[in-house]
């Protein structure tokens, strides 16, 4: 699965407020491992993504999502389905 650059950009924008490390966000950034975001904040972020794109991301899919590009691919697939 590949993700569109536009989706990646939008996800980075949504993720930035949660990024307290100051690290630059790239498609390869691992959302939970690289960014020191606690689990509740991650849930919060996933919710923002769902609301922004008006999709639902089931928890099993969340559990298999690591990087920003993984998440963008999930978003693209679900937006298309909707």
């Amino acid at each position, binding site marked *: 699965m590949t993700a569109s650059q536009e989706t990646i950009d939008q996800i980075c924008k949504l993720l930035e407020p949660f990024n307290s490390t100051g690290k630059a966000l790239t498609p390869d950034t691992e959302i939970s491992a690289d960014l020191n975001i606690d*689990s509740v904040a991650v849930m919060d972020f996933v919710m923002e993504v769902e609301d922004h794109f008006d999709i639902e991301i089931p928890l099993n899919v*969340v559990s298999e999502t690591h990087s920003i590009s993984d998440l963008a691919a999930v978003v693209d697939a679900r937006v298309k389905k909707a």
Partner: protein
Amino acid sequence: MTANAARQDVEAAAAGLVKTPRSNRDLEQQLAGFKTIAEGLDYAARGLTGFNFYSAKGQLSHVLTFADLRSRALATARKLVSAGLKRGDRVAVIAETGPDFMAVFFGCQYAGLVPCPMPYTMYIGGRDAYVERVTGMLRAAAACAVVTSSDLEGHILAGAAGAGVEKVLTHEALQALPESLIKLEAFGPDDVAYIQYSSGSTSEPKGVLITQKAIMANTQGILRDGLRVTKSDRAFSWLPLYHDMGLVGFCLAPMMGQVSVDYISTPSFARRPALWLRLMSENRSTVSFSPSFGYDLAARRINGEAVTLDLSNWRAAGIGGDMVRADVLKQFSDTLSVSGFDQNAFMPSYGMAESTLAVSFSDVSQPIRIDAIDKLAFKLSGQAVPALETQDRDAVRSFVVCGKPLPGHEMVVRDEMGSVLRDRQIGHIFVKGPSLMSGYYHNAQATDAVIAADGFLATGDMGYLLDGEIVITGRAKDLILHNGRNIWPQDIEWAAEQVEPLKSGDVAAFAVEGDDGQDNVVVLVQCRVTTEAGIEKLRREVSAVVHHSAGVECAVVLVPPKSLPFTSSGKLSRAGAKQKFVSGELVEITQRAPQAAEFLAAAQ
């Protein structure tokens, strides 16, 4: 009713959904006192009350009256038999909050099968850890089948393969099976009821075996003696149904008392904590429980919305599952008083899965009672000496009093030698009574380690009695001994968590025994700071507060965020953290923790 509530009711009605009423007009309320779960459901099904499920966005998505639940459970029982399951077989079922889980759990009751509720995954990138955990649980339960949502089927197939469980059924596949025509034989009063997995580590899960007698005793205690439930009550819950507080407190007990419950799932709560309070307001809910952290989260997320809510009906705001924190409760009631929340509704409680759920409740009609004691006497002599009003705040430690044991249950506090202690002497808490588990499933060794011949369960908690009420001060097995002094790791953690930018759950303190038999104190700190100067500043400050609060040398080890292990009930696992540290799995993020290396060498 608020405009919002009215709108929601209209929407739900348009979808053909009408939530269950608060109480049954034509059916007398019976607060447990049945012989089995199935008998309790047979009775509840004669009324109109039941379970209502709300979506992550707060919309009513499913209504399951107890009558619907009973007919679905009976049909599911016959399908489980068709799946080839035999009486006494363990059926693992992923406990997602919804009608499907309920149908399987109660279906097992009618078919004489032992349901084992299992967790689902909630974390980003959490698949592998989840599969490992499920594998361990399925193996420990010697599960004959596992029932899951289709969403999680891939994960569960992997877990089942690891555990050698051949039957993996999605809810759809189960429901597609024919209904066996054999005569169903529900569990009887002397049979087991279910196995709950929330004790033990990932590598060694322990299944708590609960009998019909135990669940009957505990639900009666909860409904009649603890909450004093009436027909005016309506419950609300976001607690996970694979945990005792969710399963027993907010599924089995309400059903045994024909009380309607409104649910959101735990992930929905984690995403939108304010939804809990908003839906409680709309449903005029009277009873809801949470660990302290839930109140903390909700109070911080409610923002300006508090003024639009009506929480004046909430009469039992229970706290359980972790150390009850008076500061968090105060913050919550300060924030929510504008919505009519009555701080006297707070109801501290104490319990554990090994005692089905509840051991004690504070008096529902009384305000919470806080016992302020002298910190020095607490540390040095193990005595809870009332603090003087003139004492400096730093010299005082405050604990929340968690109530008297349920009728028919006993609670004693003993010293290391097993002698029973008097009021205000701190020791090990033991409980006994009809709610106790019959043991850990297929694990006599672990059972014998906690239940003695005299029938008392060693809770593993430390505390003291006060006029017959229990006060919890911490966990026994985590106790640190230093120069003959008792140091509670909670104290160290609490102190360290006050250092910026640390938060609750960021610190784990424990002792590593050195060559000389002396305990060396290790403090693991989850570090989100990235600059070198910031890292060293954090290390210095934590070390300083530990010195100040516990008067002990320690090795401060800075570890990556989210690396500290937690139990399924959300408690910090100190034993797990220690094991990870000693095994070298958890290491300092920089190369500079000289003492830690020394302690580690001694421990290995």
